[in-house]
Structure formats: structure tokens, C-alpha cells
């Protein structure tokens, strides 16, 4: 693969990752947020493929396929199903001002660029140059967890966070072995399945999935 195309592909896939995360913070519709998650999963798969092919590892094809299936198809479908069972379509009223949400997201992205400098080293290759995007995804995922009240969006935030971790690990190591990725993906799948059931139970018991109402976790 010519170097320029490689660069372009990395830039495109990481760009899509960042854009989808920002859009998820901006928007309020649950369905659109889940759709963005699917796009994000596809972009992550593309990134895996690009890095793997450039490194000349054929295993990357399988890993990318796995990422695509789990993160772009299965997880969004599971979440859509949970949302439909509960009957929620929109996010709960915000805890903080939407402008503050976006400004916070911007600040966190800047922070991600600031802290990943030392990790990139003096002369980073194209893959390492995209490292701040991985950290941004981690931060933005956390940010979503913090600012949203619905349990479904919390789940979305968790998945964005996980995508961020995956991005960082792919970019730093130049591709993960199949067994590791298999383990991680199935783990995440399991977590989402369990949390999906939990959210439905929450709706049944409390009549709401607003996690700000769960306040008994103290002594």
C-alpha cells in the first residue's frame, strides 16, 4: 500500500471516529446515537484493516471482520432492541447546558492532544499521529457517561469508551492478535447483553431508566 493512501485512510477512519463521538454528544435521539455507534464500529474496523494490511498481517482481515460484526452490527442491534422494549426514543432532559456539553467535549479533545504528545515520541508515523483520537474517544465516552441520565446513553458512552481503548491499542501496537481481540470483543458483547437486560429490569421496577434516581449506593 502506498504511504500516501495509507495516511489518507488512517486520517479518514480516525476522523470518522472523532466526528461520530462528537455527534453523539450533540444529538438527543437515541436511535441516531445508536446508528452513529454502528458507523463508529465500521470506522474502527476500517482502521484495523488499514493498520493490519499496511503491516502485512493477513490475520488483520479476520480481526477487522470480527470488529465489524460485533461493533457495527450486533451491539447496535442489541441496543436498538433494548431501547424499543423500553419505548424510549429521546434522551432525558439534560443535567447541564448543551453548550457546556459541547465545550467540555472540545476541551477534552484538546486535553487528549496535550497528553498524548509524550506517547507519540519525536517522529511519529502516520498511525501514531492519530493516537490523540483514541484518547479523545476514551474521554468523550466518559463524558457521555457523566452528562447523560438515561441508562441507554450510559451504555452508549461505555461503548464509545471501549472503542477508544481499542483505537489506542491498535494504533500503538500496530494490530492486536486475534485471540486477544476475540476475548475483548466477546467480553464487551457479554457486558452489553447483561446491561441490556438490566436496563429492561430497571424500567420494570422503577418505571424509569434515569440513573440519577439510583442513589442508594452509599452507607
Amino acid at each position, binding site marked *: 500500500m502506498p504511504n500516501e493512501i495509507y495516511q489518507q485512510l488512517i486520517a479518514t477512519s480516525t476522523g470518522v471516529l472523532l466526528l461520530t463521538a462528537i455527534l453523539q454528544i450533540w444529538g438527543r435521539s437515541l436511535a441516531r446515537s445508536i446508528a452513529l455507534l454502528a458507523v463508529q464500529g465500521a470506522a474502527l474496523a476500517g482502521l484495523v484493516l488499514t493498520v493490519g494490511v499496511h503491516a502485512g498481517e493477513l490475520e488483520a482481515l479476520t480481526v477487522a471482520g470480527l470488529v465489524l460484526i460485533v461493533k457495527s452490527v450486533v451491539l447496535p442491534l442489541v441496543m436498538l432492541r433494548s431501547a424499543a422494549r423500553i419505548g424510549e426514543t429521546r434522551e432525558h432532559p439534560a*443535567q447541564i447546558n448543551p453548550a457546556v456539553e459541547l465545550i467540555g467535549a472540545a476541551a477534552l479533545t484538546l486535553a487528549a492532544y496535550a497528553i498524548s504528545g509524550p*506517547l507519540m515520541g519525536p517522529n511519529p508515523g502516520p498511525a501514531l499521529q492519530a493516537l490523540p483520537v483514541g484518547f479523545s474517544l476514551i*474521554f468523550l465516552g466518559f463524558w457521555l457517561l457523566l452528562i447523560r441520565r438515561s441508562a441507554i446513553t450510559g451504555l452508549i458512552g461505555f461503548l464509545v469508551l471501549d472503542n477508544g481503548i481499542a483505537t489506542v491499542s491498535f494504533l500503538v501496537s500496530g494490530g492486536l492478535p486475534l485471540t486477544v481481540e476475540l476475548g475483548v470483543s466477546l467480553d464487551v458483547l457479554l457486558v452489553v447483553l447483561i446491561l441490556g437486560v438490566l436496563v429492561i429490569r430497571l424500567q420494570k421496577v422503577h418505571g424509569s431508566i434515569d440513573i440519577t434516581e*439510583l*442513589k442508594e449506593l452509599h*452507607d
Partner: protein
Amino acid sequence: MTNLIDLGLQAQFGCTIVGIAAALLPARVRNAVAGTAISIGGLTAAATGIIALQGSTGTGLILPIALPGGDGLDPLLLAPDQLGGFFMALAGLVLSLTALFGIGYAHGAAASRTGWAAFAVFALGVQLVPAAGDAVSFLLAWEAMAIGSTVLLLADHASREAVRPATLWYAVLTHASFLLILAGFGVLTAASGGTNWDRWVNLSEPVTTVAFVLLVAGFATKAGLMPVHVWLPRAHPEAPSHASAAMSAAMVKMGIYGLLLVTLRLFPNGPQWWAVVFVALGAASALYGILQASVQSDLKRLLAYSTTENIGLITTAIGVGLLLRGSGQNAVGDVALVAALLLALSHAAFKTVLFTGAGSVLHATGERDLDALGGLAARMPWTASAFGVGAMGAAALPVTAGFVAEWVLLQALIHTDARADRLLAVVLPITMGVVALTVGLGLLTFVKAFGIAFLARPRSAGAEGAHEASFTMVAAMLIAAIGTVGLGLIPGPLSRLLGAAVGAQDLAVTGFTGLELGSLGAILLDPLALSLLTAAMLVPVLAINAVAALRHPRRQVDLAWGCGGDRTSPRMEYNATSYSEPLVRVFGGSLQTRRSVEVITPDDAPLLVEGIAFNQETTDVVENRVYLPAIRALERFGDFARRLQNGSIHRYLSFSFAALLVVLVVVSR
């Protein structure tokens, strides 16, 4: 030929292993086998200690424990010097006797597998603390001692509510002591590059001062000196009696050993103010301890406060000795230091008797409250005789060890030339006053302890039905009592050895076995002659008594207008509270006792009196003024911190997010 000291140290490990293994035996034989093993271990320690005290040295037993790092850490060395040998012998004798007592005494949880295993570990720890030749083995033994005693203290936690708070106080303070000592040793290790004692002797200011402050705070906590004594009156009453005897007679002495280690072995040329600190701490503890002891009516609590008093006297003696050595009066200083060791030994002897005696009383009557005892002399003659001897020792009466020790201390105080030095001119007269007042109050206190508990008539059903203790218990008490008297009658040879341990050479044996303080001019103490003289003086008194008894035989006088009432109800007896009432009056301000008189009347007839209840509670001023406010402040801080945890998931998430950000920012710098 193998070195005897090394052999003795190895034998102690062997006995401890046998003791722990014996703790696993069935309950029927556990007490006997485990108690015997620990007792033999104690005797081995005593023998080893005495050999070391006579000046032999071991080749140095190196514990085969590999330390991580290794850099700056010397091997774990067990090599007692003369001073260490003295404390090892003291601890060994006490533990041997208390283990023997425990064979008959331990019951319930104290006789469990855990109970005996903890006692074995505790005993080994106490015996090895003075043998340590470096900081790490010292701390290992120290911690074994701390953990073993904490477990022992917890023995009755299931049956008595008060045990848990007592253990909490003890555990907190004992670990505070460990941490302070660890910090002190850490400072010295960092400054010298090694953990062996020998490496530290050449250190100079300001390292030594920092270490002195940390170490003295740590050792004072273990010894039970005044501001940090609060664990004693809580822990001693709640521990099983053989454990409280071992803790009071042997374990707190390790605090004293620590003080001597710092000031005699490590930094013998410390500044004068170190000695003044010792005198101040010691004098305050002695006075406060005996004042509190004199008004207690719980027998074991009384003994616990008396421990603070005695430790205070020992520390005072050490302080005086250092002060005098520092100002050039070496001979008198030596005598004061020997007095400190004699005080430690006599306290070990009579406190073993008193705590085991209190244990026998508790075992027989189920009561610790003096106001519920009485009349035990007829019911428990052996216990009563032993306790009587112990009480005489604690009151520093002649022919007991306590008398010899305090006599030597007073001689040192009296024979000091304080004209030259203004510091001495201020400190010594005050010290003398404090010692005199302490000894006087001590006499009152122990007259009360013995008189109320053992004489007159029983004040409760428990005391009424008391029975003599079992054979091993009586044996342990009597051996300790004989030791108390023996030290009082033949102090000479031992004092010479003690003189060598603190570097004094001027003591000699006089007469048959008496003591001559050669350095103070011809000051002689010959207890045998003294007791013969006393006996001779008693002859006319007894003769007059006998004659009077023959002339006027005792008649039972009944109340002329008593309407058949009983004149001698136990409720009319003088009891512990009434005995100490004058003291409460005089020292009320510093004792802060709380009294309440409640008149009980029927609900429908407020003018009729059904009964009158009097209640007196003694409180600890230091605890009320220092510890409780500190604990309350901590609790307020804790309540404030609880606000952080309000149950909101978002808040918890933001904590971890903030932590993640901080970590990343720190890492990326």
C-alpha cells in the same frame, strides 16, 4: 563447643514451636502441654539472659531470613549484650511463671488453640526483643509481641462487651508505637547506611535528636507513660489474667529496655534535655498513675494504673541517672541507673504476683470489684499470702524487692551534689518530692487493695463461695512471691551484675548479702540485719499484745437496743470507695470523679424512702481532655468525608474520570 547463648536462643525457638504445636492438641491436655512448653521456653530465656548478663557474648545468631533489596540492610542478628540479657532474663522468668499460672487458670477462649498459640508467639516476641542486635530483628520481635498480645486480649470478646473497645484502644496505640519506632529506626538507617546497632553509635546531631524524639514517643507508648498510658487501664482488666500479668510485668518493660537502648547503648552522650524529658515524663506518670490507682475500686484497673506509676518511677530513675552522668557526677548517676533496673525487676516480680493473684480471685469469685470482695484470706489462704507479699512489694515495704529498689533510688537522689548545677538544683528536689508522695500514696493504695479484698467479711455471694486456686496457679503465685522477698533479702550479688549492665563498677556486696553503694561513701543496706532488727522490735509488741489478750479476753457485745438487728452486716464495712474518699476530696480536681446520690422513692409516695443509691465513677482526665476531643474531631472529619459519597453514580463516575485525567496528565509530563 557450641556457644551457650546461641544454644539458648535456638532452644527458645524450639520451645515456641513445641508450644504452638501443643496448642493443636485436644482441649484435655492442651493447657498442660502448651503451658509447660512456654514455661520451659521462659526458663531457657532466663538462663540465656543471665549468662549474657554475666558478660558472655554469643557468636551472634543470624536469622536465615532473606530480605528483599538487601541494600543497606544488615543481616538479622540476635546477640544480647549485658543490658539485653537482663531484660531477657526478666521477661523469661515472668513468662515462665505466667505460663505456669495459665495452665490452671486458662479456660474458655483463653484456653483455645488460638489462645495458646498467641501466647507462645507473644512470649517469643517479648524474649527476643532484648536479644535483637539490629533494627529489623528488633521490629520483628516487637511486632510478634504486639500481635500476640492483641490476640490474647481479644480472647473473651464474645462473652464481654468491654473487650472490643479495649482491644481497639490497645491495637491503635500499640501500632502507633510500632510506627513511631519504625520511623525512628528509619531515620537512623538512612543516616548511617545500615540497620545494625553498632553502625549508629557514631551518628551525631541533628539525626540523633530526631530519632530520639520518635523512638522515645514510641517506647513510651509501649511502656504506658503518662500521656499515652490510656491503653493500660482498659487492656489490663479485660485480658485474661495470665496475659495481663505477662503484659504488665514483662511487655511494658520492653518499652523501658527501648529507652535504655537509645540512651545507654546507641547515644550515651546525648544532651542534658533528654534526661530532663525522662524525669518530667516519669514524674508525671508516677504521680498520676498512683493517684488514679488509689481511687480505683476495680482490682485489675487499680493494678494497671499502678503499672503506670512504677514505669514512671523507673523512667524517673533513668532520667536522674542520665542527668547526673551528664553533669559529671558519674558515681551517683550509676547508682540511679542501677535503681532503675532494680525497680524494673522488683516491679516484674510483684506485678506477676498481684496480677496472678487478681486472676485467682477473679477465677474463684467472678468479681473484680473490690467493693464486692472481702473475707478471702480465710477462704484462699495461699492466694492471700502471695498477694500480701506482692502488695508489700508494691507499697515498697522492707524485706521486699520494692523496698530495696526505692531505697537505692532515694539514696541516689539524696547524695547528689546539686550545689554546682542549677538544673540539678531545680530538678532533683522536685523529683524527690514526687517520689516520696508516690511511695506514700502507693502504701495507701495497696493497703486498700489487700485489706478490702482479703480481710473483713465477704461483701457478695461470689466472695462468700470463694475457693482456693488450683495447684499450678498457687505454685506460680508463690514462686513469684518468694522471688519478691528473695530480691528484698539478698539484693547484693544481683545489684553488682546490674551495675555492670549499666556500666557502673562501684557497687559491692556487704555483710551477708546486702548492698554497699561504695561510690556514695559507706552507704549500706543489709536487709537480713534489718529484718532481724524488725523481728527483735516486734518481740515486745507481741508480748504486750499477748499479755493484754490474756487479761482482757474478747467478748461478743450485742446491741443493747438493737431490736434483734445484726450489728455486723457486710454492708456496714469500710469498702474501697469509702477508704479512698479522703483522697478523692483532696485530689478531686485532678481526678475528676463523678458521684451521684439517688434517693429511690415509690411513685405514689414521694416522701417515703425505699433506698438510697450512691454511685462513684472515676474518669481519666487525659482521656477526657486529649483523646476524646481528638476522636470527636476525627469523627467530624469522617462525617464530612461521607458527603463525597452521596450515592450518585454520576458523582462516582466523575471521581474515576478525574482520577484518570490526573494520572494521564502526570504520566505525560
